[in-house]
């Protein structure tokens, strides 16, 4: 883990997300009136504009929606290159960017729609959500 990798800085509106990560939980905002989750965090539901929204722990399961493999490493990522920058389709609906760990990041290994599960890695003052191939899935 290089200290040079970019570190997120939470705001009051995103702090609950990062608080969840610190406890090893992926949490998303949920709008009861839409019966839907959304991401990234906002004070109101982007569909119906209700501010009566809540934070819920989600499964941490998803699938690999799309990705590219970066051959031009960012600061701190030199030893990881080439590495995938991925978009994970979460089981609950929203998608989020992440990295894929626990498997060599090659086009052959990274098959779209493969099942993934969340894991966390320390990054500065937060725990950063990353994804790895789901247990029991083809590796």
């Amino acid at each position, binding site marked *: 883990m290089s200290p040079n*990798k*970019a*570190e*997120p*800085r*939470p*705001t*009051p*509106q*995103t702090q609950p997300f990062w608080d969840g990560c610190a406890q090893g939980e992926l949490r998303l905002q949920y709008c009861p009136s839409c019966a839907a989750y959304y*991401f*990234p965090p*906002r*004070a*109101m*539901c*982007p*569909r119906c*504009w209700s*501010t009566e929204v809540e934070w819920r722990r989600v499964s941490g399961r998803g699938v690999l*929606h*799309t*990705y*590219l*493999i*970066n*051959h*031009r*490493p*960012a600061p*701190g*990522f030199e030893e*990881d290159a*080439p*590495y995938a*920058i*991925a*978009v994970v389709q979460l089981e609950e609906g929203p*998608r*989020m*960017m*992440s*990295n894929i760990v626990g498997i060599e990041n090659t*086009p052959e290994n990274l098959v*779209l729609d493969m099942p993934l599960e969340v894991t966390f890695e320390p*990054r500065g003052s937060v725990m*950063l959500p990353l994804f790895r191939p789901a247990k029991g899935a083809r590796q």
Partner: protein
Amino acid sequence: MSPTNGRAAVAIVGAAETTRLGVIPDVAEIELHADAVRNALSDCGLSVRDIDGIACTANPVALAHYLGITPTYLDGTSVGGCSFMLHVRHAAAALRSGLCQAVLVTHGQSGRSRVGVGGRGGDPSSLQGQFEAPYGPTGPPTLFPIGVLRYMKEFGLTHEQLASVAVVQRQWAARNPRAMMRDPITVDDVLSSRMIAYPIHLLECCLVTDGGGALVLTSAPRARDLPQPPVYILGTGESSETPMVSQMEDFTSSRAFRVSGAKAFAEAGITPADVDHLMIYDAFAHLPIYGLEDLGFVGRGEAGAFIEAGNTAPGGRLPLNTNGGGLSYTHTGMYGMFAIQESVRQLRGTAPAQVDGVEVSVAHGVGGMFAAAGTLVLSNREP
């Protein structure tokens, strides 16, 4: 005579400030905007669904996405503290001419507490800074093409077809003495060039150059007295989707492209079949593919084969990016100006790779990474 000289009057119907003022250390800057917006909408009784225009000195793309708005009018004019007077003036003109139906002019600034400032990205407390930057992108080449593999899986686009975009545009560039890259290339050359971000190779990325451009606009009556043949604006469109490419609704299509293109074609009263010449901002080789489909020139999933078959090449039925594009002509960082310049040259009949009989040209630009779009329908015939 009315004070608006016969034009429809425009009114401010809602106005409100943030709920609190003073010291607000618990609210990020973008949420200060949203709070003021909620209060202003409550004040006037309109819903966010009624809003299709947005103006702010921060990034209006980011704010529109945060608020869940699909805009057809964006104004990011930032000239200091009087910017909002300019926003109101521009909004009045936009409303009078039908670019949109209702505009939000917003302000939110965490000037004292400095919470979540730097909303244009790059700041670690911005949403991009928290939810994209930690995963190691190094600029657009390592983010913008992130949907290409999804597109390939959905529609069967091949690596060779993607490479053919660069090959065809080099054919145009070879006819243009001002193009930076003019030597012919093959699909094999593209696929054996350095890998930048799989599946994107070096020759599928735009150039990085220096340069500039300028345009002068005036009224049609005045244009008639000037020396150059006028290029008329038949229709325009604009829209935005999200400042975070990871939050695109569909990684195989740009919502901003679709909304902007449809608006421009409707305003011009034309269909893609009426277009003689086309410019699609090609930051990377996948952009012309998305553009051809999202503007309606071909069906979904058809653009790769369409380009590979030579339809957009010299002699093809839809000349595209005839200056060589961002891939081979020039790309200073914000290439849209050069796309417009080539449309003007083609309509004047002065392009180095002149296409015969161009009467309608479309110049379509992207902003950010599918964050925003703007479309111009131009003609040398007076409407």
